[in-house]
């Protein structure tokens, strides 16, 4: 079962400054959407809010009765401690959290699923390797295998191809397309505009505010990209309280 994700007047802040400002819109069920925008546009902040790991300052993310455990989230590689002494198999098995949770034991079936997931990402035979011995590309494949084990209806990817070789990127894009074909909702934060044009039917162009959202071919035009690029990267030191929020408070 897939599900739509709705943003209702969503504002996410860092030290009261808006990282995402009054965003509204819908990620349709079964859609494949890229979130793009300049540095500091609030892309990762938005995907964290959708994943439920960041609390909105104003507004809400509506998951349409989709339980948290049905959302698969791939954080940025920098947020994961790759020096941690874990094996590849143990890392992939974390994807079984939905069925084993914090306390239940993993079964042979889970181990079998983990093995199959590793085979699907081209890492068969890597089960006992330490994650610290893997290359960036191999580690990203392991995290995708964990997502496969999660079997989630909504999949959120935060910069999944950063510092990854071309072959791994191509293989993982195939996996993303397969998820899309299966009817899952996939949302990915990306930087490579050409990659988005080729592989993602929908795009959300973000620059703290939503610049444009819709079919990729319509959204990624020069005018929209210029508007996003012109976003002021620095904070306005004289910023006043937001009028929209003040109205809501009243």
């Amino acid at each position, binding site marked *: 079962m897939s599900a739509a994700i709705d943003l209702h007047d969503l504002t996410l802040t860092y030290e009261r400054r808006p990282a995402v400002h009054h965003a509204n819109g819908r990620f349709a069920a079964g859609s494949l959407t890229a979130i793009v925008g300049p540095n500091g546009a609030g892309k990762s902040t938005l995907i964290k809010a959708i994943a439920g790991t960041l609390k909105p300052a104003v507004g809400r993310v509506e998951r349409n009765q989709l339980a948290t455990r049905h959302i698969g989230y791939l*954080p940025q590689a920098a947020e*994961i401690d790759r020096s941690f002494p*874990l094996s590849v198999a143990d890392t992939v098995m*974390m994807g079984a959290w939905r069925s084993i949770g914090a306390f239940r034991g993993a079964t042979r079936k889970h181990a079998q699923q983990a093995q199959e997931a590793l085979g699907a990402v081209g890492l068969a035979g890597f089960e006992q390797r330490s994650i610290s011995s893997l290359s960036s590309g191999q580690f990203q494949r392991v995290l995708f295998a964990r997502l496969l084990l999660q079997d989630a209806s909504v999949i959120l990817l935060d910069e999944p191809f950063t510092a990854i070789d071309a072959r791994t990127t191509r293989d993982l894009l195939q996996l993303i397309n397969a998820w899309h074909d299966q009817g899952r909702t996939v949302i990915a934060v990306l930087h490579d505009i050409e990659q988005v044009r080729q592989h993602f039917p929908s795009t959300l162009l973000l620059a703290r505010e939503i610049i444009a959202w819709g079919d990729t071919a319509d959204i990624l035009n020069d005018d929209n990209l210029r508007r996003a690029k012109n976003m002021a990267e620095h904070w306005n030191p004289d910023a006043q309280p937001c009028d929209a929020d003040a109205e809501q408070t009243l």
Partner: protein
Amino acid sequence: MTLYSLLIQPFVDFGFMRRALVACLALGIGSGPVGVLLMLRRMSLVGDAMSHAVLPGAAVGFLFAGLSLPAMGFGGLIAGLAVALLSGLVSRYTTLREDASFASFYLTSLAAGVLIVSLHGSNVDLLHVLFGTILAIDDQAIFMVGGIASFTLILLALIYRPLILECFDPGFLRAVGGRGSLYHVLFLLLVVLNLVAGFQALGTLMAVGMMMLPATVARFWARSLTGMIVISTAVATLSGFIGLIVSYHASVASGPAIVLTASAFYGFSLFFGRSGFVRRLFPRVHLSG
């Protein structure tokens, strides 16, 4: 001198040595795994700060009941948990990071503790609190240290998976609905409890030694988490045993002898461990595939 008289006889002849040995073994079993997790969470210095933070509570316990481990331990537990909680709140609701808030609170705690003991006790009492008196440990204290070690292993077994996940990939744990902050608080409780258990033996200043030195030794030798926990526990218990033997035969203070034994393991591992200096300077022939 025979091997028997060197290693066994002190424990056969003297009850205080047997009690000290049991306490050291229990301490090692509890502190070994906690130290590894503390190190992997990059909180080694937070452990050190926490060991100082228990002092004012222990000092208040000392005021009411003298050198009684249960009274001082209870006071230390309250003080340690209060500092952990306050530091967590400060780092959550202000821009100060957790290590900086821990440092601020532990310095305040250390000063307050020393002041309380020095106002109402002698210098000897102060030395007992700061550097420990494992050879004076009684049955009641053994039960307490043993109880803490048992509780530590049981709680660690229960929260092991989310604790590891919270350390390795906290964003993922939050996304799957795991309550990371709950496991963080439970882990801090274990740290404080084991420091409380350790301060009778090693004093508040060195209690963290039984926790962190074996953990750093394990990092040099083991590649897996299980291997690290086993090695850390073995080094902690062995340091207790060897330290007591050295302390008995050389007539030196037992607490520093135990910590210096763990330091000797660390020094050896620093040079000869799998990722130590020697392996770096003289790498072995590479493999063919």
